[in-house]
């Protein structure tokens, strides 16, 4: 199994003479903190009323819940290069990408709480966030978010814009046929797509090395004649740099690229997952990318106590506002359960 090479106590990669200016670095940190604050709040709300014991169908937020804690560097580093005119398609683990791409937190949260004010009026749930305002979508079927992203890119190309589509999957998804078909088609048609693979070492209980024949999914790009790059260490600034190249290539009409980021699943596959299969469980928290980046930015003089405090407070305020909004929103009327099948 692939493990993070760097122990958390060693100097973070981000500290090594950053090429980024202070506002950019601060913005990356802010996004990561907002994503994490959100997931912590959903974690709290999700488990608040599942008892006695744990009943997955109970509570204000029922159903499967796949949280993205630990994967914030991917969302922050990639989405920093996008505007809400660009498209993002995500997976069953979508919150960090939705937030980093600028989704309205209230409408997103209301959907996760199954409310009429939610993005999908409570029909979709947390794996099915569809937001026309930010061209965001996601799917619970592994790798099946890639093909529609091609179509968004195709439309952007036909409209002669420089908009791009970013398609995200986990490393487990890279063994699915749709993944390979999409890379080939996008490459052949020079579609403005950025393929992003979040390698968090695990597909539920199956370690990546047990499932994948090559050490890096970035190597697979060569099979389709497109650039492939792997970012190690869950390093947000390295993600930022790789995404800059890939987005620029797509915007300029040169075609797609693939980026794989070696990231971290800080928590279970879904809530309720005891992770008995995960030998490195005890050391996982020590690889948390957020304290590491905070430390780097403090050491570089980019952030101090006050700034960190402000960033965390601002994130908490936005997140709690969204949760309060969701909780006070009306539930959908059961009499409308058959609505919205057709336009």
């Amino acid at each position, binding site marked *: 199994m692939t493990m993070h090479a760097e122990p958390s106590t060693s100097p973070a990669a981000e500290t090594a003479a950053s090429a980024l200016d202070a506002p950019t670095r601060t913005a990356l940190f802010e996004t990561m903190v907002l994503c994490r604050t959100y997931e912590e709040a959903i974690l709290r709300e999700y488990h608040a009323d599942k008892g006695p*014991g*744990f*009943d*997955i*169908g*109970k509570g204000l937020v*029922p*159903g*499967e819940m796949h949280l993205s804690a630990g994967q914030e560097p991917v969302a922050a580093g990639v989405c920093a290069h996008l505007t809400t005119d660009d498209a993002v398609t995500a997976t069953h683990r979508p919150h960090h990408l939705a937030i980093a791409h600028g989704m309205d937190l209230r409408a997103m949260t209301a959907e996760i709480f*199954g*409310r009429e004010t939610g993005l*999908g009026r*409570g*029909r*979709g*749930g947390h*794996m*099915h966030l569809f937001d026309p305002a930010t061209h965001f979508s996601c*799917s*619970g*079927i*592994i*790798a*099946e978010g890639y093909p529609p992203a091609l179509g968004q890119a195709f439309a952007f190309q036909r409209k002669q814009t420089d908009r791009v589509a970013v398609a995200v999957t986990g490393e*487990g*998804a890279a*063994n*699915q*046929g*749709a993944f390979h078909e999409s890379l080939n088609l996008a490459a052949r048609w020079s579609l403005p797509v950025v393929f992003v693979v979040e390698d968090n070492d695990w*597909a*539920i*209980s*199956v370690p990546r090395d*047990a*499932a*994948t024949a090559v050490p890096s999914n970035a190597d697979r790009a060569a099979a389709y004649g497109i650039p492939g790059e792997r970012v190690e260490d869950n390093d947000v600034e390295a993600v930022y740099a790789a995404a800059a190249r890939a987005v620029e290539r797509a915007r300029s009409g040169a075609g797609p690229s693939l980026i794989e980021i070696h990231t971290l699943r800080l928590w279970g596959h879904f809530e*309720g997952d005891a992770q*008995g*299969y995960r030998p490195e469980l005890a050391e996982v928290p020590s690889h948390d990318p957020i304290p590491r980046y905070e430390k780097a930015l403090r050491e570089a003089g980019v952030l101090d106590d006050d700034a960190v405090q402000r960033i965390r407070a601002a994130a908490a305020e936005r997140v709690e506002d969204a949760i309060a909004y969701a909780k006070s929103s009306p*539930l*959908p009327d*059961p*009499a*409308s*359960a*058959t609505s919205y*099948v057709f336009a």
Partner: protein
Amino acid sequence: MTITDTPTAPAPQASRRLTTSKAMVEAIAQEMERDPAVVYLGEDVGAYGGIFSSTTDLLARFGPERIIDTPISETAFIGLGIGAAVEGMRPIVELMFADFMGVCLDQIYNHMAKIHFESGGNVRVPMVLTTAVGGGYSDGAQHSQCLWGTFAHLPGMKVVVPSNPADAKGLMTSAIRDDNPVVYMFHKGVMGLAWMAKNARSVGDVPDGEHLVPIGKAAVARPGTDVTVVTLSLSVHHALDVAEKLSGEGVEVEVIDLRSLVPLEREAILTSVAKTGHLVVVDEDYLSFGLSGEVVATVTDHDPTMLKAPVHRVAVPDVPIPYAHGLEYAVLPRPDRIEAAIRRSLAL
């Protein structure tokens, strides 16, 4: 056995109480002991023991050569199951959720289901495709479907759907020994999982030792005289609850558990409706073009005058399964809808 053991004839069908999942796993383990050609493949079937406990502890017992975690490549590993079956193995292959059939349907319906026919009966595909179905816990439109009508519609695969522990064991044993592809669809809500709301009927007596339930035989889950409820899977639990309640009012509901869709025991439906003259069909799959219509046609093809009242169908009203709890429970065949349909049928 040592010579100090007292040989005892195995008590005919001694039993214990097991959850449906444990009963299913017991059948798999017994068949794996009996036949080295049986292997189990799928996602998270090893260390995890199956997301819905379809393979609990089997890895420890049989090792990674026979309990095999696959990449997330359903087309490849279901197809692999087909080829292995053709070469004489007896693979059990798990599609984690029936909803995921979309990514691998070609292997299922154009290959697994058609090879025997296309080969003029010369090539057999003795495999089991296990898959979890059903909703009720807010898993949304891509993780809550039953879809058994779709599998049953496509010729060439048997389709079994156990509702209780004993049938889960007996149908699994029969499925593994069958020389045809058998799709074995287990509802998450009947498995007796610790982390999901469950009906008491998800735990029940399961015969020790070898236990077979023939594929293609329905069961009278509760005898009655006034109205027939034809159903399957988790809806059997709900129908039995409603039947118990109505019995208190002097209404005797006969509940038929189909257990097997392909082949379908039409005779069991006709026998019951001949007795009651009233039919309610309860199906957690979509309403139109599916199982509930097939059951009704079974009766009307035979003799429409058997029916003393219009048939009532309780199914998912042709809408994807909604996420929000209140919406989901409005479309699933829950006890309230079943009871209302029975009352309408009997003009109560």
